[in-house]
């Protein structure tokens, strides 16, 4: 995918921000990204805004136009995107293909969520879904994967918990993460059981926040030293086959393979990965889908330290969703912001030395034991 570059990136702290509102968070992140790009808003040819819960929680619909207009992005196409946890990365996917088509040279992508409100409760796959009405909440969905996965591959509860230990350790170096204190294995295993075998410290917390990126054609990005190339951006949906294999995530694997194919690389070419660790088991399964280890080997991979900062292929050096929190609409953009910082060598104490190729994987939604959306972005310098 030569020809599309990322020239600006920024994000707010992810935290429970009682006084913040959705559009305020979005503007803050967008402004950081535009300033990072050094572009006036008048040069933005299209705006993409990702958010999930605004219409439900505060009645805010088509909030994207409100955000863009306040930043001076007017008259141009503005699109609002909702695709569950992949809303931000789906907005990015749309923007990449818009720039690639030549329809415009610069696109602003903003993902934002304000979700720390009283009584939100646990997220689910949609209130009308039969599964939701039979008690399927997100932690249960991943607990069912974990149970089956452990049964088939002998993965231990300790190996699952080590994902949280690793990512919280990484987050000690990320000032924008919500939880920056390290946790021990005993603390993770001893935290309250949510849906066995998943304990509370293996579930990503709620957060408010926003993240934004500026994309540009090669014509605009040409003289920019800090531009990062987008080698692949894919989005796919679930196959919803029945019976589904809960221990091997076909949609995840399919998305990752497609991204590798488009980028012309393989797992050995990666230097740094951000993946959707909404729950500990999720990271283990995503590392397998990415081919960072053999099927069933995700527990041993994290236990052996390969995915730790300084290891063979560091995963979620930002601290991941488990440490940052998961403002739904923002997460897909925040993962990309992290990869951009890594590839620019601007990640400070959590820098993966010499990182030149990075990947951000995200999944969202829950239907028929499958994800409704999977996105993968490959970036390089």
């Amino acid at each position, binding site marked *: 995918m030569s020809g599309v570059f990322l020239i600006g990136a920024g994000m707010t702290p992810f935290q429970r921000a009682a006084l913040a509102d959705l559009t305020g968070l979005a503007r803050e992140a967008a402004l950081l990204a535009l300033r990072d790009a050094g572009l006036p808003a008048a040069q933005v040819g299209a705006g993409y805004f990702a958010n999930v819960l605004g219409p439900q929680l505060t009645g805010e619909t088509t909030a994207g136009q409100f955000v863009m207009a306040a930043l001076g992005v007017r008259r141009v196409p503005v699109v609002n995107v909702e695709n569950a946890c992949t809303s931000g990365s789906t907005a990015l996917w749309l923007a990449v293909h818009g720039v690639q088509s030549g329809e415009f040279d610069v696109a602003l992508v903003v993902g934002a969520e304000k979700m720390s409100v009283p009584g939100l409760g646990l997220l689910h796959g949609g209130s009308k879904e039969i599964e939701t*009405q*039979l*008690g399927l*909440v997100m*932690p249960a969905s991943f607990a069912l994967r974990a*149970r089956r996965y452990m*049964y088939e591959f002998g993965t231990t509860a300790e190996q699952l918990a080590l994902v949280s230990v690793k990512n919280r350790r990484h987050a000690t170096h990320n000032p924008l993460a919500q939880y920056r204190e390290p946790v021990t294995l005993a603390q993770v295993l001893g935290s309250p059981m949510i*849906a066995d075998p998943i304990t509370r410290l293996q579930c990503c917390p709620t957060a408010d926040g926003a993240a934004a990126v500026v994309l540009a054609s090669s014509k605009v990005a040409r003289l920019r030293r800090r531009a990062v190339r987008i080698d692949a951006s894919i989005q796919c949906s679930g196959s919803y086959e*029945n019976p589904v294999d809960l221990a091997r995530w076909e949609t995840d694997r399919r998305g990752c393979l497609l991204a590798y194919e488009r980028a012309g690389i393989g797992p050995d070419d990666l230097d740094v990965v951000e993946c959707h660790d909404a729950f500990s088991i999720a990271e283990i399964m995503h590392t397998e889908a990415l081919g960072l280890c053999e099927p069933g080997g995700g527990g041993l991979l994290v236990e052996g330290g390969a995915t730790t900062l300084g290891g063979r292929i560091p995963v979620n050096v930002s601290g991941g969703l488990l440490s940052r929190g998961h403002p739904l609409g923002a997460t897909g953009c925040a993962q990309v912001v992290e990869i951009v910082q890594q590839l620019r060598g601007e990640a400070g104490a959590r820098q993966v030395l010499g990182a030149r190729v990075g990947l951000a994987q995200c999944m969202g939604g829950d239907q028929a034991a499958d994800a409704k959306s999977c996105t993968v972005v490959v970036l390089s310098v």
Partner: protein
Amino acid sequence: MRASAGRADLPAFAPGIFGVSGNDGLPVLLGSRCAPCDRAYFPRSSLCPNCLGETVEQELGSRGRIYSYTVVRTKPPLGLPAPYAVGYIDLDSCGLRVFSLLDAARPECLQIGVPVRLAVSPLGHDGRGNPCLRPYFTPVDAVAAT
């Protein structure tokens, strides 16, 4: 086809999910089938996503085996008991893997591979807060013991 016997003056949590078997009067899951594609669906899908032809309702039986399970210990949604159990069941009759509530009364009986059968009881409330019937699977041995 009416929902469940006995305590069945309560409405089902949703229409068309379970009924009473014409064979033995016990609860059964209801789904649909596309004959030309030889595919079964749960919950019922009026259109076959494979050929876009119309499906017909089909009983999916009441027996299966646990494929995976978990006991949920967060504040339960929809007035479900705390804790409550859920899982995926491989149905004997059609090979479908379906999500269901499980009997949480004897969590030690919940194991992968355990044979289960369908039961229907008042469980929680519907979206408007009214009590309703929900189906759940319970280990076969536990049924025999009661």
